[in-house]
């Protein structure tokens, strides 16, 4: 299905966030995730069902001022 992943239209096979992280090679990366502007806690990644058109943000720590 087609979602918007980090601002880009992306075709994915995963149906939940845990599967998406595996599919997109984010495993073992320290990330936080929001779907449609709602943060999804780590504990809910397996249960969090994805839908076509979802806007998914996967973010990591970075330098800042």
């Amino acid at each position: 299905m087609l979602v918007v992943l980090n601002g880009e239209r992306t075709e994915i096979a995963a149906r939940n966030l845990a599967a998406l992280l595996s599919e997109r090679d984010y495993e073992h990366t320290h990330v936080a995730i929001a779907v449609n502007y709602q943060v999804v806690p780590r504990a809910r990644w397996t249960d969090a069902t994805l839908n076509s058109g979802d806007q998914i943000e996967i973010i990591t720590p970075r330098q800042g001022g």
Partner: protein
Amino acid sequence: MVSFYGKDFSSRLLIGTALYPSPAIMQHAVRASGAEIVTVSLRREAAGGRIGNAFWDLIRELDVTELPNTAGCRSVREAVTTAQLARELFGTSWIKLEVIGDDETLQPDVVGLVEAAAILVKDGFDVFPYCTEDLTVALKLRDAGCRVVMPWAAPIGSARGIVNREALKVLRARLPEVTLVIDAGLGAPSHAADAMELGYDAVLLNTAIAKAGDPVEMAKGFRLAVEAGRVAYEAGLMGPRDFASPSTPVVGTPFWHAVS
């Protein structure tokens, strides 16, 4: 000691972690600055990337308190969601709240800032709002539950030092119970000392250290300046005078009242 949301710190200098020539120099500069709080951000990373993990390890090695920011956010919704992502990512309720209203000056959108601050305080965040020197905005931020307020000295990265001194003095006088931090626009250690002499509780900066010829030495310079400014403020600065006043005693001056 300075207190941020009930947590005490010895250093009154907060510094950013961006723009350094290398990660190692960033670490050395943080240590040389004596800062116990550093600002960090959060960004998208391409699939399979490991930049975030590497930075995470660097910060953890420093054993400092992280203050995540919402840099780059241009709406209340973006800022609130970014703050919530930061809480999830860094495991802290602290957030340096930025809502940018103008791309050229990076001036805060103070209307959106107050709205976002109120939402985040209700959501349990300890908010460090980046604002202008406007008094009414600072009062609204305080009333929204912010116990820290961070007005700019000048636009981010401009290195101009304090532009609107009188307004910043008014802020200090009107918000005695709020922890006030000068955030952004400082270019030299003397600017930091200036802010501290006005009675501000701390300063926060990044570019002036990171872009110095020798960031580690400049970090040391800012550390000393912040300490000097604070000591001077606590010692009680004399006020300016319109006319000269001799420092050497006048009485007993040779030839004083001599008859010519």
